[in-house]
Every structure is written in C-alpha cells, then in structure tokens.
C-alpha cells in the first residue's frame, strides 16, 4: 500500500472532542454512574496468601438489615473456556473466574471469596465483615526462589509445565510454562568474543497505578437481559468473559464502557463485573461495585517481578557475537506472565548472530498479573541495555556508536523470527546523537544514561462506522474506550478523508450493542488498527459521495473524481461546479437516502516501535536520594496523527518507568500480606520528582498503514529502567541489578562498594 505523505488535518493539534467535558468534571467515569433502586456491593477478601477454604458461613451476614444477596464460589461454577485475543494470546476464563471468586483455595492476600449486595454501602461492608470463613492456612510461596525450590508450596497440584519444559522435570510444580528462542551456536559465539559481560537483575512486582479504581454497575432485567456499565479497556472482552465465566449467552449481555481513568493493561481483565452480575441476578436489583485503593493494589493485576541472568559477548570492534539469558517471571496466582514477550523483546534491537534465551512462567502467591504497558519488555530490556552499557565501557566505545553498530534495520530478522519491515531504530539513535541533551555538560554528582527499547505493537480486530448528516457533519462510532486521546485522532482521520473540519466530526465510543466488534484499547492498537477501520469507513463514505454526485449530475460514475474534498465532473466541456461534502449531504434524502460508511478488519501486525531515552540523574551521596534532572524521550511513531497526544504517551511512559526504577515496589511481609497497598507507601512519581520531559518524534512510515502510523503507547515504558540504571552507574560507578534503586539500597551499595570495573569474564 502506498503511504500518504501530505496531510491537511493529521499532524495538527486540535482540541480533543471530549476535552471540555473532562476539564469541567462532566465526563462520566465508572463510579459516576447510578441507577434508581441500586444496591451497593462489597467484597470479602482473603487475609491469607495461601489457604484451603474449609467452610463459608454467610448466616450472620445475611441477617444484616438491608442485605439483599450474597454470592460465593458456589454460585459460579467453574469453566474451562478461553477467550482468544488474536495476537495477544488467550485469556483462560477458568482462571479468571476462580480469580474473581475463589472456589477451593485462596491464592493471595486479597483474593475474593464472597460478595454482598445491600441497600447501602455501609450495610454491605458490615455484612462482608460478618461472613465467617474457616481456612486451612498453607505456607505461601512469596518469592521465585521459594516457588522453584524442591520443597516449594504448590499452588495448583494439577499444574504441569507447558511449552518446552526441562526434560526430566517431573512431579508437582509451580512452573506453568517454559519457552526458548535461539539462533546459531551460542557457545561458539561466546568463544569468539573478545569481551564478555554478565549480570543478574531483579525487578519487583509493580502496579500500573491508574488513578481511577475499578467500578461497575450491573443490571439484570426480568427478561434476562443484562447491562453492565463499567470502566474497561475492552467492552467486548468484558461481555465475552462474563458470558463465559457465568455460563450466559453473550447475546444477552450488553456492556457500556464509561470514560476510563487509566488502564495501561490493568483494566483488561474482569474483576467486579461477574460479581455485580450475579448479585444483580440474585437480588433482582441493579448493583454498583467500586474498589477501594487497597483492593486495587491487592487484588487486581500488577505486573511480574522477575529474575534475569544475562550474558553478552562482543568483538573488540563492538560487533555483538553472542547473548544468553535465563528469565523467571512471576505469574502471580495463576499462569500467564509476559515471559514470552520478555524473551522475544530482549534482543529485538540488535543483530546477534548467536543467542539462547529461555524464560519461565512461575506461579507465586501474589495477585494474578495483568498486562502493564509493553508487558515483559521493560525488565528484559533493563538487562540488555545495562549490559550494552557495560560493553561500551569495557570497549571504550561511545554508547550510541556501539548500539548503531549492531542496530537492526529493514530486512534484518527479529529474534522471534520474521523480518523487520521499515523500522526506525537507527534514525532514533541518530536523533539521540544529535540532540543537545546528549552533549550537554553534567553538573557535580550527576550521571547520564541512555537506553533503547522495542515493542511489537498489536493489530487485531476493529470495526468502525462513519455516518454523514444532512448538514455535512459526520459521526464516527467505534468500540474503543478513549484512554489517551484516540477520539481526537479518529475524528482527524475522518476529516482527512472527507475534507471536512475536525470540529464537524463527532467521535463516539459505542457499546457492545451499538458498535461493531472491536478488540481492546490496548497493545498500542487503537490509532493503528481501529484508525485503519475508521479510514476505510470514511473512504466508503467518500466513495458513496462520489457515486451520489454522479447521480445528481446524471453522469456515469467513472466520470466523477473526488479531489480536494470535493466531487468533480470529468465530462469534457462541463461547467458543473464541484460538489463539497456539505452540498451533497444537503440533498441526501432526495437523491437516494442516507450515507453510512463502514469497515471491519483484522489489521496486520502493526509496525514495531523503537525508542531511546536519555536520563540525567543527580545523586545526594550522603543519603542515596536521587533526582532526575533532565530527561529526553525519542521515539519512532511512524506518523503522529495528533503530536500532542503522542508526546503525552512518551512522557507518561517515561514517568512510569522512572517510578519503577527508583521507588515503586510491592512489599510483602513473611506471611504474604501486602504491606503498602496505598499511594502513601507505594511511591509513584509526583510532580516535584520530575523535570520537563523533552520529546522528539521520529517518523519512519509503517507501510501497513495508509498514513504510516505505528503504535506509540507502550514502547515509552521500555527504555526508562535501563536509562535510569545506566545514569546511576555513571554517577556511582556501580551496576545496580536490583530495582528499585531506592535511597536505602543506593546508600548501602555505595558505602560498601567502591567503583567497580565492568564485570569481566574473559580477557
């Protein structure tokens, strides 16, 4: 497909259509919704990280005035269905259902066991406190080490290792799966290396940290029709998951997405929705459920903590010859960490002729992990980019030159197999080299780090309709919740295709009854894949307009072209004035009826995105406290439809990565209880922790998309861990493998260790 290069609307910065609602407090998020006669739900959660449920006695709870319904695992028979998400894998509904409401065992502190609906929230909470549960408490496996030990507490007795298990490993296990990717002969490769570096890395479990807690209202009608209003990244997924978990007919379930207050992958799974539905079924009333912040931390889907051991070898001139890595990723209570993506991303930026990467999916007694923005990649990239930094030091090479020497380009093979199409890593690295930040002098006690990163980006299924109104304005409807400004982007695409102003386009987020099937707002796919459907739907409108003009002029369709936002007659000697969209729209009723354009597609795998970040960090050597004093994010966006929102993704992802590198971590005590389930002690960056974050958008067009768009939302979180770790290395002389590099850790390391040479394994 040929990529368009001249744009009138795409690339500008209009005010977003939902903007006024959001700056005035009018926009309705999940918890803002209410229905008459509504009940309030509360959840009973396990205080134990690992236990068998012996008995549940709800009698005292039922006696609380105002209580209308109570549900336990008995009300939700187990299922073994799956929901397929195309390239993003499958979600196991059996696991998701057991996670929503435990059946035989509780597997983490906060695991839901029962739910109550009552006339007031207080009554529901009161009743929840009175549910009596007898547990047979078991030892939890709270670390990878414990989960992998020979005498490990086993979470799922029936679990066997999927993928490529180690031959000979038998018996009960917490390893849900193992995978490998390899190329060439890694031993021979290392034998050829002039320099080898190796290090171990550990990152903690961290949370996406969206500010809006999960919230749902469900109403089951007397006719069996179910409506669920919920804050979610995927209304169709909510419908299919709830239908699967609750053995319902999806045709009877309508899911209406609210505005969403952040997701980052964490609002893909369902948690409250199945509970609210069953409570509404049992009580005959609508039920509203909102999580409190403590529940969000304890019982939704953070991302994996992990342990990575990695080794890289290069020749004296900087050419990489070999790499090997072993990675263990925490899945939480049920299988399904991003171990595979982690392995595939680790070497995605470089041509490495020989490599062996293995990755393990390990269950532990922590909440089941969910996607968090480029799942798996930030951690494995921490390992790769830290080692590249060490190699550059050992080889006395400029860090950008070393990366450019090995950087993948069009036609090179990705580590997971396919050839890269046109990609922008080299251009991104060159932009780093040219950026004033790269050559700015550093002040005292400051260090600088650079790191690059990769994310595949997703395609998957999308639908769109574009309807034309008689006044020449248009409505575009898709099923993707607007997390970061995609409504504006969609309107801009319709404008571009039809030649009408952006303010004359109404972008609407539909629900599962009003929008065509659409996969999640995730995987950096909305602007790319749903955008593609929007463009095709607008093209459909444009084609109908062209045909309508022919009809109006009573000439053959092949005598009409569409140019510059107008229909023009090709008939020689014709003095017909070209017809604008408004002109044709005004005649619709008389010339054949309304015009609605539509498209639905399964988008090919989106163009991969590469980014590089530069981080300057200042260290207070006496306390171990550090401050980011300058930060620049450079990224290939293919084509930035609305540059402000692309910049916003880059800045937001960088901030999350900085928090991950410096202060964020789940802290569990020995019994497996989370000690910091709140914003006080789960330390996300605040405004005074960060400087302005400069951004540079590189555009190497993605040929799969008519405008060249690449997904932009996820790759920004991939480089920061390593960029910050490399800056810390620069100022302390110490390679930190353990995240976060919080002040006590930094002070402990800097007072016990002196400057270390790059870890040397051979001459």
């Amino acid at each position, binding site marked *: 497909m040929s990529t368009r290069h001249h744009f009138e609307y795409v690339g500008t910065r209009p005010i977003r259509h939902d903007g006024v609602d959001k700056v005035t407090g009018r926009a309705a998020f999940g918890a803002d919704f209410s229905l008459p006669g509504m009940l309030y739900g509360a959840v009973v959660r396990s205080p134990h990280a690992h236990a068998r449920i012996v008995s549940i006695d709800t009698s005292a709870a039922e006696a609380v005035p105002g209580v209308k319904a109570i549900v336990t695992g008995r009300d939700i028979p187990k299922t073994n269905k799956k929901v397929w998400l195309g390239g993003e894998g499958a979600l196991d509904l059996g696991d998701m259902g057991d996670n929503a409401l435990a059946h035989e065992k509780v597997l983490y502190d906060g695991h839901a066991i029962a739910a109550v609906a009552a006339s007031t929230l207080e009554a529901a909470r009161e009743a929840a406190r009175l549910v009596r549960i007898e547990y047979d408490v078991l030892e939890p496996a709270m670390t990878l080490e414990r989960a992998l030990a020979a005498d490990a507490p086993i979470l799922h007795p029936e679990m066997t290792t999927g993928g490529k298990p180690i031959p000979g490993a038998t018996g009960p296990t917490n390893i849900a799966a193992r995978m490998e990717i390899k190329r060439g002969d890694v031993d021979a490769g290392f034998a050829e290396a002039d320099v080898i570096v190796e290090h171990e890395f550990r990152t903690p479990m961290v949370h996406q940290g969206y500010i809006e807690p999960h919230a749902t209202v469900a109403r089951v009608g007397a006719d069996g029709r179910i409506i669920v209003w919920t804050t979610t990244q995927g209304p169709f997924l909510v419908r299919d998951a709830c239908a699967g978990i609750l053995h319902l007919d999806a045709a009877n379930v309508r899911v209406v997405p609210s505005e969403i207050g952040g997701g980052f992958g964490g609002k893909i799974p369902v948690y409250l929705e199945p509970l609210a539905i069953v409570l509404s079924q049992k009580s005959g009333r609508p039920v509203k459920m909102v999580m409190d912040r403590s529940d969000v931390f304890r019982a939704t889907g953070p991302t994996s903590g992990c342990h990575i051991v990695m080794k890289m070898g290069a020749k004296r001139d900087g050419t990489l010859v070999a790499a090997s890595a072993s990675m263990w990723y925490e899945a939480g209570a049920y299988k399904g960490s991003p171990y595979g993506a982690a392995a595939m991303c680790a070497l995605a930026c470089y041509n490495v002729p020989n490599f062996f990467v293995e990755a393990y999916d390990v269950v532990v007694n922590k909440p089941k992990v969910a996607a968090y923005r480029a799942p798996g990649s930030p951690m494995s990239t921490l390992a790769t980019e830290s080692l590249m930094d060490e190699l550059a030091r050992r080889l006395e090479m400029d860090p950008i030159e070393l990366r450019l020497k090995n950087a993948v380009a069009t036609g090179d093979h990705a580590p997971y197999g396919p050839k890269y199409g046109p990609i922008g890593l080299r251009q991104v690295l060159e932009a780093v080299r040219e950026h004033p930040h790269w050559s700015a002098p550093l002040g005292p006690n400051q260090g600088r780090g650079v790191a690059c990163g990769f994310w595949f980006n997703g395609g998957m299924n999308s639908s769109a309709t574009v309807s034309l109104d008689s006044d020449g304005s248009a409505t575009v409807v898709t099923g993707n919740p607007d997390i970061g400004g995609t409504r504006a982007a969609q309107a801009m695409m319709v404008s571009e295709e039809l030649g009408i102003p952006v303010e004359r386009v109404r972008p609407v987020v539909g629900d599962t009854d009003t929008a065509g099937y659409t996969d999640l707002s995730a995987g950096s796919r909305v602007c790319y894949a749903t955008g593609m459907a929007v463009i095709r739907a607008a093209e459909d409108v444009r084609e109908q307009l062209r045909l309508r003009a022919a009809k109006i002029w009573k000439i053959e369709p092949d005598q009409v072209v569409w140019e510059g936002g107008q229909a023009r007659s090709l008939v020689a000697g014709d003095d017909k004035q070209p017809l604008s969209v408004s002109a044709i729209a005004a005649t619709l009723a008389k010339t054949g009826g309304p015009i609605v354009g539509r498209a639905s597609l399964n988008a090919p795998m989106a163009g991969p995105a590469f980014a590089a970040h530069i981080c300057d960090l200042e260290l207070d050597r*006496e306390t171990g406290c550090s*401050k980011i004093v300058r930060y620049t994010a450079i990224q290939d966006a293919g084509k930035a439809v609305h540059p402000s929102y692309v910049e916003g993704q880059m800045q937001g992802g960088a901030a999350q990565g900085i928090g991950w590198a410096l*202060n964020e971590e789940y802290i569990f005590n020995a019994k497996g209880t989370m000690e*910091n389930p709140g914003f006080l002690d789960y330390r996300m*960056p605040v405004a*005074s922790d960060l400087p302005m974050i400069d951004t540079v958008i590189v555009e190497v067009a993605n040929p799969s998309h008519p405008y060249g768009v690449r997904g932009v939302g996820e790759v920004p979180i991939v480089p920061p861990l390593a960029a910050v770790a490399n800056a810390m290395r620069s100022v302390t002389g110490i390679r930190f493998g353990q995240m976060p590099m919080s002040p*006590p850790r930094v002070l*402990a390391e800097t007072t016990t260790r002196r400057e270390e040479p790059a870890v040397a394994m051979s001459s």
Partner: protein
Amino acid sequence: MSAIRYEAPTSISEAIRLMQADPAATVMAGGTDLLVQCRAGVKRPSAFIDIKRIADVMSVAIGPDGLRLGAAVCAAELSENRELRQLWPGIADAASLIGSTQIQGRGSIGGNLCNASPAADTPCSLIVNRAECLIAGPAGERRVPVEQFIVSPGKTVLGPGEFLVAVHVPLPRASTSDAYLRLTPRSEMDIAVVGSAVSLTLDAHGVCSDARVALAAVAPTPLLVPDAANALIGSRLDDAAMTRAADAASAAAHPIDDKRGTIAYRRQIAGVLTRRAAAIACRRVKGGY
C-alpha cells in the same frame, strides 16, 4: 465507617462535657490521620468531636510571652504566618512538610502531636524550641513539655475528658534560630524516614552557647538527643563539632526496620540530617533570617 455521631462544640467547656458524656468519642481537628484510621478499622469512635468551631483552638497569637498556637490551626495557615516563620523557621519547616498542599489545608500541629506517630514531623521542632502543650480537661488546664507529651506510639499523656487546646512556644533568645529537615524517598508526599530538628544559640563571638537536637522516626517517640546538643555547645560549629554531633545523633537513634527504612539506613541518615539541620540553623542565626 459506620454510625459515628458528629458534634461541633463552640467552647472548650462544651467539648469537655461531650467527652465526659461519651468516653468513646474522639476529638477531631483536621482528621487527616483520624479519618484514615477510622476507615481502616484501626479506630472505632462513637462520635467525632470537631473542635474547629472553638475560637481558642483556631487562633495564632504572638506576643511578649511567645507563640500561642491553637491546636487545630492547619499547617498551611501556620506556614503563611510571616512572623512565625521568622521567629521559628524550623517549626514552619516542619509544618510545611506535613504532606501535600491539600493535607496542609487540614492537618494541624495538635493533630500531629496527638496522633503520636514516631515519624511525626512537628513534635521535634517544638521540642527543640522548648514548647509546651496546653491541655484542657475536667480538672482545669495544665501544661506539659512537648517532649513529655507523647508516651509511646499512638499514646499521649491525655487523660479521660482531656484534649490539647494549644501549644505554647517561648520567644527565642537573641541569636537563636532553628531548622527541621527530614528524609523522604520522593521529593514530597512521604512519611519521614528520619527527621532532625536543631535549635542553636550563638554568642557574640560566634560560639554556640545553647543547642537542642531532636530526632523523628528513629525511636518509639520523638527523641531528644542531649549528646548531640552537647557536641555543639561550646564550639564554633566547625567540622569536628558537627561530626561529633552527627555521630551522637546516629548513636542515640534506635529505629526499627520497616517498609520505609532499615535500622542501618536510619542511623546513618540521623547523623547526616542533624549536621545539615545544624548548618541551616547556624546560617539562619548569622544571616539574621
């Protein structure tokens, strides 16, 4: 939270009457600690006795006697008071560090003292300024030095029917100033991992004639460290004296390991912050802040 009454007395005696009538009721100022604890089920009072409608508890007065600071005055109002900032910059430092701008619009020194957290920021700055707590109760009013007010984590000397009405801080002597510093992992919004308050008096020759040092978050209660103060008294606050004071602070600290800091880290930082706070206090004295 369930079924908690709300009362808003307009006089001290009315508040005492309400407390005596219902011993399970609790006094409330800004509520920034109290409401969080109630929500977590840690406290279950039968009623909130909101004292913010009592004029005596909400006023700030500076006179020849010193500062009389109403217990429920919010931290923001305190830091906005220019005269207070000039006379007791360390107290203003501490008040302006209690949480976010929003929290400072509510949180009070009285609440900070009565919550009696080992990590509280303001008690130490009050202690080094020789402040006293003014307590009202059924038996009348009494005064208790701040360093004796907090007995153990979460517990004060307040008896049944008693509540903290104000804090009194004597005017500082000439050539005296103070500072309060704390360490937090982020730039804002964290509970102190360690806090250090230092008050210094210099004589005409620049020699330290008086000093007080108090540490937060390194002991069950705010910790007055006479050894650190003595290391400074008689010195010109030279490097050696500062180091001795820092070492004394580290030695006196007996913190715990918790999710905010380790024992080793807190001991080390106690010394670092004491040295820095002393340097700031000294600069303030000399700079006539």
